[in-house]
């Protein structure tokens, strides 16, 4: 167990009947960092989180959180973690404040301390006005914030967030991102799962990509993007031209794709300076009528599609135009 690692998992495996939910998953999260676990539905993200938060046990493998084994020392792990699940874990019939105070008391805070902390978090999450209304009447965004507040009652060293913004409107989502960044700035270690590539890209120091219970890639967002072939070169023609694909092949690191109407061509391209100028010159010399030429940094969508075999990269995402 490495002191610098707040979360460490080795060869975690878990089976549910016929489904191998987790297959030899390893994970390291450095103290004070934020790691995103990315994957489609059923990739094993939630299972991994349930094991790390002591809600489930692995069939094989071991994991430590804050230095404590999640199976043999679950009680010690629970004293260090905050968990916000996909489903709201609030008592609908209690008010927001009552929920927080109850969680605080059950987290070994004294009643007065629990009340003080609840007030503080209700203010922080802009829930003061709704604090004494029952949770049943809260909006989705308010529930998420209250749920997160509940996870923070005892100032956990490690925070687990299972799809923290799923189902939130864009404003609530941005607000949640801000809160998570603030927590990390204060030294909390965060492991979050998400299906949203932009979320992992925006928040995480590093990303672990899961698919069918296996880790298919890991690295910083930048590394992952670089791994799938530097950049994406895209050319739009004013009229189809048979020499276009051949001309572009010189810059390609894979194959050149052409749209059905022959007007659009794209390819992963070598990462070199002056790519656009060189490509434009070559196309021009071949007599190809170029209307537009752009270079995209691949989005995580592209990366993800490439890693999980999800088909051709999508190019309609806003990229960096050259």
């Amino acid at each position, binding site marked *: 167990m490495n002191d610098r690692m707040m979360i460490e998992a080795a060869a975690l495996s878990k089976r549910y009947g016929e489904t191998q939910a987790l297959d030899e998953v390893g994970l390291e999260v450095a103290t004070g960092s934020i790691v995103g676990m990315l994957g489609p539905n059923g990739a094993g993200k939630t299972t991994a989180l349930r094991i790390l938060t002591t809600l489930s046990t692995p069939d094989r493998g071991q994991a430590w959180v804050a230095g404590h084994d999640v199976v043999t020392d679950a009680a010690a792990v629970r004293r260090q973690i905050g968990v916000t699940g996909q489903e*709201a874990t609030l*008592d609908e019939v209690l008010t927001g404040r009552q929920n927080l105070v109850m969680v605080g*008391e059950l*987290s070994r805070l004294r009643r007065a301390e629990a009340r003080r902390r609840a007030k503080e978090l209700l203010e922080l999450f802009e829930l003061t006005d709704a604090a004494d209304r*029952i949770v049943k009447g809260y909006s989705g965004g308010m529930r998420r914030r209250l749920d997160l507040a509940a996870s923070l009652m*005892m*100032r956990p*060293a490690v925070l687990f967030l299972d799809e923290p913004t799923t189902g939130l409107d864009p404003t609530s989502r941005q607000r949640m991102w801000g809160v998570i960044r603030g927590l990390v700035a*204060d030294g909390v270690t965060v492991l979050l799962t998400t299906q949203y590539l932009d979320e992992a890209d925006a928040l995480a120091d590093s990303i672990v990509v899961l698919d069918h219970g296996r880790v298919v890639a890991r690295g910083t967002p930048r590394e992952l993007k670089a791994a799938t072939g530097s950049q994406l070169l895209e050319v739009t023609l004013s009229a189809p031209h048979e020499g276009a694909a051949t001309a572009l092949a010189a810059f390609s690191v894979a194959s050149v794709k052409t749209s059905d109407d022959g007007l659009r061509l794209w390819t992963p391209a070598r990462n070199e300076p002056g790519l656009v100028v060189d490509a434009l010159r070559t196309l021009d010399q071949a007599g190809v009528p170029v209307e537009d030429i752009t270079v995209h940094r691949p989005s995580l969508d592209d990366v993800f599609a490439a890693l999980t075999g999800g088909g051709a990269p999508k190019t309609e995402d806003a990229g960096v135009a050259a």
Partner: protein
Amino acid sequence: MSATAVSTVEIGAPTGFGRLRSWWDDVWALTRRSLIHVRRDPMQLADVTIQPVLFTLLFVYVFGAAMVLPGGGAYKQFVLAGLLVMNLTTAGMGTAVGLSTDLSTGVINRLRTLPMSQTAILVGGSLSNLLSAAVCSTIVAVTGLAIGWRPETALPSVLAGFGIALLFSYALTWLAADIALGVSSPESAQGIAFIIMFPLAFVSNAFAPTQGMPAWLATVANWNPVSAVAAACRVLFGNPNPSAAVDAWPMQHPVEASLLWSLVILVACVPLAARLYRRRTRN
């Protein structure tokens, strides 16, 4: 965000007396939660408030008119102890449904990641049920007094009778918890609890002396824990108790039999509930 600054102080695990103390704090916090639920929706207590009144009136005025007790005595003096036990027993169905509903929400997952005592969840639930059983008993007693039921013994004896009934009710709470933990939905909890609690309440001496039943059924009824508790209450209230003439050990020693039955149910059901809870929340 500075308000959420992380403290690096590790909260230690409590030991010895502190451990018992914090266990009790957890139990109390969860009992209060149940009480808030009741305050928000008092109608969920209908089975221990309105039902006892209805059943008392129904049995005394509808069925009681046609009842003649072997050995004499007025039916309403006889039936009150039966009504008390029957209402407490059928309230077990509500317990099973309540716990099962709770287990199906995300609240349990939150509780399971907190550094709290995990048995506190079940114990807290059982204590709030005990409180509602006390409410139920009071309502049965008040309704009884209003229609002319009278205990013929001193107050300590009467209170002992209610105590035995409440202990039995508390034991049944754990049986209900086993049912709730063993099935997958509140609907099945309701169904299974009904199948168990209803015959338990009615195949007994609660409403009719067992002497009139077919022999095999009378044997079942005489050994039914509900009969022992009802007979014990009749003895302790000084009310007519035709079962005293029945030659079965529990009917000859109803107080001892009631205590024993409650103990046996607790010893069997509490550890089972703890095991089912762990299994239920493991995957």
